């Protein structure tokens, strides 16, 4: 007796809707077991992770702040993945965007530069992120080099470049030798939405990005082309969609969004450029993209959920001394369950009973 996969006649709509929920449920069960192994009370731990952050206003704002870069990056990545282009270097594009935007902030520091500073920073960061993402895209289209490996290698290069800048030429002379730039001027800072709070303009920009992506994918020919190229490359060729062009386009857009997220993080919650501005946003955004089923609204919900795990993880560490790495394990397990449940949209399990009349195959 054995279990085998069998292709469904058509994709199951019920499972398509339920799969992210099943995946979250299975992840929670796994986490309860993991907490028990770590010798922590599972119910208290789950409460610290998922309920406590939702009960006070400060944490709620903090969730939105953390979700902002995740959602922006994941929207860009979802376009790539829909077109079957594998950008996994968003972390690097995020850092390069942060560096490029910071350059304007540092150049105008102490001058009487006006309100144009912040918009210029955002534009330059997006452009730099897009250019950085175009390196792997062009290597793939022109030379056939795997974009997966090249985009990832450039993450390490970006990290080292940022490290060089804040330890070398851009180091704050009054910073007691810490590897950080000076605090940005108010004109180079993302304004807060609530006075004295944490929520900033970036979250509103992220919502605009979600809306823009929904329109692009649902209402335009370009968006249709992206989906066709990924789902049915042969049909796309006959339909006159240029796959290479769409790889370049989706990489550029996702790089621009990651770069924008980078400068918003630096000019917003952080306030200056330093190493470690990202707790792995570029990689967590991959999970957000898949958990959101590569759908803009889904990504918004998934981004808020994963932001909750970041905040909950910090609170669980303070309250119950649960190591921060548990959050990463949680995110990895979640991605596995999401992918596994998605498989059941196209396939179903079938129990095969051994039969004595039919001889087993030659194998």
């Amino acid at each position, binding site marked *: 007796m054995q279990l085998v996969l069998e292709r469904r006649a058509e994709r199951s709509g019920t499972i398509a809707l339920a799969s992210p929920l099943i995946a979250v449920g299975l992840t929670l069960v796994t986490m309860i077991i993991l907490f028990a192994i770590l010798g922590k009370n599972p119910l208290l731990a789950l409460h610290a992770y998922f309920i406590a952050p939702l009960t006070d206003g400060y944490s709620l704002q903090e969730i939105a702040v953390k979700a902002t870069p995740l959602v922006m990056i994941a929207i860009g990545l979802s376009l790539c993945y829909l077109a079957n282009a594998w950008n996994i270097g968003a972390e690097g594009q995020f850092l390069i965007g942060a560096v490029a935007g910071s350059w304007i902030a540092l150049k105008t520091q102490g001058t009487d530069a006006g309100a144009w500073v912040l918009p210029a920073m955002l534009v330059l960061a997006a452009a730099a992120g897009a250019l950085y993402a175009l390196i792997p895209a062009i290597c793939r289209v022109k030379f056939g080099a795997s974009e997966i490996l*090249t985009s990832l290698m450039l993450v390490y290069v970006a990290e080292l470049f940022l490290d060089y800048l804040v330890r070398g030429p851009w180091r704050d002379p009054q910073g007691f030798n810490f590897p950080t730039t000076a605090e940005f001027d108010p004109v180079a800072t993302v304004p807060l939405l609530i006075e004295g709070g944490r929520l900033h303009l970036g979250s509103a920009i992220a919502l605009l990005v979600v809306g823009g992506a929904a329109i692009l994918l649902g209402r335009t020919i370009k968006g249709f082309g992206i989906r066709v190229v990924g789902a049915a490359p042969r049909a796309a060729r006959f339909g006159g969609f240029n796959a290479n062009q769409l790889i370049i386009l989706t990489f550029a857009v996702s790089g621009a969004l990651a770069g924008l997220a980078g400068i918003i993080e630096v000019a917003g919650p952080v306030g200056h450029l330093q190493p470690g501005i990202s707790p792995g946003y570029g990689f967590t955004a991959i999970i957000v993209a898949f958990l959101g089923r590569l759908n803009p609204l889904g990504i918004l919900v998934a981004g808020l959920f994963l932001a909750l795990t970041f905040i909950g993880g910090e609170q669980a560490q303070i309250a119950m001394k649960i190591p921060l790495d548990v959050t990463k394990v949680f995110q990895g397990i979640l991605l596995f369950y999401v992918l596994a449940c998605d*498989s059941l949209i196209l396939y179903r399990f079938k129990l095969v009973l051994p039969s004595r009349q039919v001889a087993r195959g030659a194998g």
Partner: protein
Amino acid sequence: MELVEAIILAVLAASTPLLIAAAGELVTERSGVLNLGVEGMMIVGAACGFAGAWLTGSTFIGALFGIVAGTLMSLIFALMALGLAVNQVATGLALTILGIGLSGLIGAGFVGERITPAMHLHIPGLTDIPLIGRVLFGEDGFVYVSVALIVGVWWFLGRTRAGLILRACGDNHVSAHALGYPVLRIRTFAVMFGGACAGLAGAYLPLAYTPFFIPGMTAGRGWIALALVVFSSWRPGRLVIGAYLFGAVTILQLHAQGWGVGIPSQFMSALPYLATVLVLVLLSRARTGGSTAPAALGTVFVPDR
């Protein structure tokens, strides 16, 4: 002379984890499976390997811990990508994310601890030969294992019937299935071999390369191993050249930093990663006459009955 010998020894040490991990991934990919989780399997192998050696005081047991940990990680991949027919690229990424978290969790208690590094071979007389003595007869066990491993892989893939069947699965899984070979079972074994090698490669880092564990100590070596497989055009012989070339680049940049070349250290540290990008571009460009990759690499296979 002393310096030349020291450099060769350092290059071998830096190349060994790349060679071991890439040898395993090469077998996995020749069976038609693209496991992008090498980095995740390596880092868990590093944490478990250090834990094993620290608890028992034995490098050998530590290496075994690493191998078992890497194999277990690869079984998760096999369950997903082969059992549930999930996209292999996404599954490999998930394995890396999970591995980085798990290794932090496992290794947290061991940060700051030290162990005795792996013993080096010493044969009186032979090891003392100038220049080549320590290179040939004074290495740690991992270096010899890596050489034996790559020779074994070359022999298995090119000279045995089982290797031929494995390659058939990688080139055309439908034909292999029609001939009656259990494609998914063969691929599972290939994935497990890749995981065992990645785990051993990871364990090498805290057991022999540096005698302590730091989170994230694989620093992208798993990804470089993946690039090396592409570099080798899926051939074991070229893999050796590639691995030692990369080891040489790593050591070159370290020495250049030591000599005080006027280039900031971060630019030198970026060299291995930039070299990987450059090599991928040049090789893919040179290969316009048709790909040498296994034809079914990365494609989903669900047997029909």
